[in-house]
């Protein structure tokens, strides 16, 4: 059981890293891009870069703000 946990922890750290919010925002951004493109017919090429910049900024802000 411990080995399975360690294996899972390794891959979580490898893919997701220090801040899971970044990964969640990228996945949400991709989902929204797909909806806008396929359902609303909007060629939303600009959305994912904006989400990536916002995710990085938010993650940096969280990492550098004093803990309450």
């Amino acid at each position, binding site marked *: 059981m411990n080995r399975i946990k360690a294996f899972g922890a390794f891959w979580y750290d*490898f*893919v*997701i*890293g*220090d*801040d899971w919010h*970044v*990964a969640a925002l*990228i*996945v949400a951004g*991709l*989902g929204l*891009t*797909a909806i806008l*493109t*396929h359902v609303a017919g909007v*060629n*939303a*090429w600009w*959305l*994912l*870069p904006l989400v*990536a*910049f916002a*995710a*990085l*900024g938010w*993650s*940096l802000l969280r*990492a*550098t*703000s*004093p*803990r309450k």
Partner: protein
Amino acid sequence: MNALPLILTVFVACVVEAIEALTIVLAAGITREWKSTFQGMAVALVVLAAITAVVGPAIAYLPLTPLRLVIGALLAIFGLQWLRKAVLRATGYKALHDEASAYLREVTAAETAATESRRGVSDWYAFTLAFKGVLLEGLEVVFIVITFGANQKNIGAAVIGAAAAIVVITVTGIAVRAPLTKVPENWMKFAVGIMLTSFGTFWGAEGAGVAWPGNDAALLVLVPVVALVSAGYVFWLRSRKAAVGAPARQSEVVSS
């Protein structure tokens, strides 16, 4: 698309990982025993080659659109991790990755460990230290080679970039026989983070169905924009830190 950006990106990313693996291999070889260290390194390289040989061609058979969606997402997440660490290090919120102190840590641990012979290997500690170091750092190389190579339908070019990096660092390591402390690792990581984030965003959005203005030429705009925004974050955090007077938090663990 021209294979040169692909080869260069993989080359720089692999140089960073190879330097970290070299530090561990040197610590094992110099402190313990070279034969067992080389055995551990060789077994790890065989495992990594097997993963690339199996997963690389298998991925090439998958349909391109879902492949780009998944790989784009993974690359963007991976790239943003690298950028986040590089920005925090560039602004002093996180300690710089120091090959000299990493080497010292490994040497201290290696000097105190007992010598044990196992499965035909005379020094099991040196073997496992070299094996784990090369395998873990190499996994990131394999990930980058496979994702970039599969998306560009050019695994060969990605392998050339990775192999060139490994040869350059190995030859330099043999010549210097010390950890490569003078390499500007953080700035290289910064550059790789920019490339991974840009390519990941580009392919991910393509996989989600968008058509980029100018097709592949959009990358020529996207890469500098990601670099500018990242530089902007460095400037912003430095100004903020200067205004506050001291780093807000130094608690993040130093890792690769």
